[in-house]
């Protein structure tokens, strides 16, 4: 039953404010979809509801036929759905090695945890030189690499990434996005990438969804979205 991610008529309210309104979309397994929109468009709210951090008001969401809603974030991680949150995705007080270890702490297959750990350090070799440093001594880009590496140790199937480019220099953003694209190809990951940086996100995405004030404005391939001058001017910023 590899149906991927299916979101149907999802609405999320904060009191009287509607953050997400009747949103429906789907991701096929292995697909990388970028959700693009400005501040307040409901991107982070959407991703937080899919990872169990907030409860939607109405609607449904499922991964390979199993409902995501009503489950705790830690249970969803154990089902292969891993959320890397915006800006604060590592634990600053712990060392790099400890942050990495968290990704496999709950897993029973310790041999595979060791293997995943080695693979993560091969993908982000800078982390191997920082293992005993506290995470708060890392640069923003290194922290983002650490967060992705920790997620990989959990052996995710669906990666929910919230603004991985936030606060990073353009060169670092480029490196992170190239690594991300390689990872999803290598592991067959399905990725929902929430980004304000439309240009970088659409470079690696299979499709893009544009959100505005909690509603889906349009969706399409990067080429389709970038060809529309009105969309570019209004939502993509380039």
């Amino acid at each position: 039953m590899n149906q991927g991610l299916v979101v149907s008529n999802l609405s999320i309210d904060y009191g009287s404010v509607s953050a997400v309104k009747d949103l429906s979309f789907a991701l096929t397994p292995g697909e990388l979809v970028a959700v693009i929109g400005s501040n307040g468009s409901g991107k982070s709210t959407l991703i937080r509801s899919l990872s169990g951090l907030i409860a939607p008001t109405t609607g449904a969401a499922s991964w390979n036929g199993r409902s995501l809603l009503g489950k705790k974030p830690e249970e969803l991680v154990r089902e292969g759905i891993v959320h890397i949150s915006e800006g604060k995705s590592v634990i600053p007080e712990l060392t790099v090695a400890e942050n990495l270890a968290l990704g496999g702490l709950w897993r029973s297959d310790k041999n595979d945890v060791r293997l995943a750990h080695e693979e993560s350090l091969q993908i982000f070799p800078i982390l191997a030189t920082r293992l005993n440093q506290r995470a708060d001594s890392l640069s923003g880009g290194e922290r983002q690499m650490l967060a992705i590496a920790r997620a990989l140790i959990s052996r995710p199937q669906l990666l929910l990434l919230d603004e991985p480019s936030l606060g990073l220099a353009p060169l670092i953003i480029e490196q992170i996005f190239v690594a991300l694209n390689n990872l999803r190809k290598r592991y067959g990951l399905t990725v929902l990438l929430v980004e304000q940086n439309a240009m970088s996100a659409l470079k690696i995405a299979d499709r893009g969804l544009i959100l505005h004030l909690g509603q889906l404005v349009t969706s399409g391939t990067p080429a389709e979205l970038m060809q529309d001058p009105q969309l570019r001017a209004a939502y993509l910023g380039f």
Partner: protein
Amino acid sequence: MFIDTLLIGISSGAIYSLMALALVLVWRSTRVVNFAQSGQAVLSTYIGYEITSKTHNYWISLPLAIICGALIGSLVDLLFMSLLSKRVKSGPIAEIAPVIATLGLLGLIQSVIGLIWGNAFLQYPSPLSGKGFTFGSHTVPFSPQNLFIVLASATVLAIFGVVFRFTNLGLALRASSFAPEIAQLAGIRVSRVRNIGWSFAGAAGAVAGAVITPTSTLSPNSLDLLFVSGFIAAVIGGLDSLVGAVVGGLVLGIGFSFILQYISSSVTFLAGFIILMIVLLVRPRGIFGKRVGRNA
């Protein structure tokens, strides 16, 4: 005289260390300063007292009191703290609510103890001699009971030090306290882990009550002053460090002892706050407090 004063300081410092360890354990697991700690500790001590009264054997009551202390800690979390944290999740109220809750809980526990056992001062029989060791013709002010307290403090430090530093549970406890949301997103069952943290602290508090009370008397408020000293010791040590809790306790105990001996008994309690101020002015994060990292 100097050595005698030092020994008195070490034995009372070990007592403060035990209470400080219990406070640090809750702090490290949940980021809550548990003002109910003395109430929890005294409740488990009353249970130990009851068991000792029935069995006439302190060594049977001690492990049972520790188990009860752990259960009390777990119940405090299940019935009060985790319910509160689920309802009050963010904002200034979320910061202050657990502190207020533990203060209220302290009153509740002490009232319940008063209803069950009354408010009279009870004598908790000491399993060990309170007479100082004798070397030649000199008897030092350090008894087998004092030695037991020091060893108990060292054992609690060693056990929890190993758990926090070298085990997966310890890592999960630290992750859950520093950043519960990130820990959850890494797959850690944060509620369960925090409950274990409360149990650990309850057990450490029970050790404190059970080894200290035989040196004095037992009443619903008998550990309150000790809690204040333990709290000061924990802050001196950096609040987050188990070693810091022990060092903080020893600094305080030895400081009190020398002030009592060479200055005046009337300034002893005030001296605790003066020592705290001096330490925090010199080391604002406490003796073992960690530095703040760079902003990404």
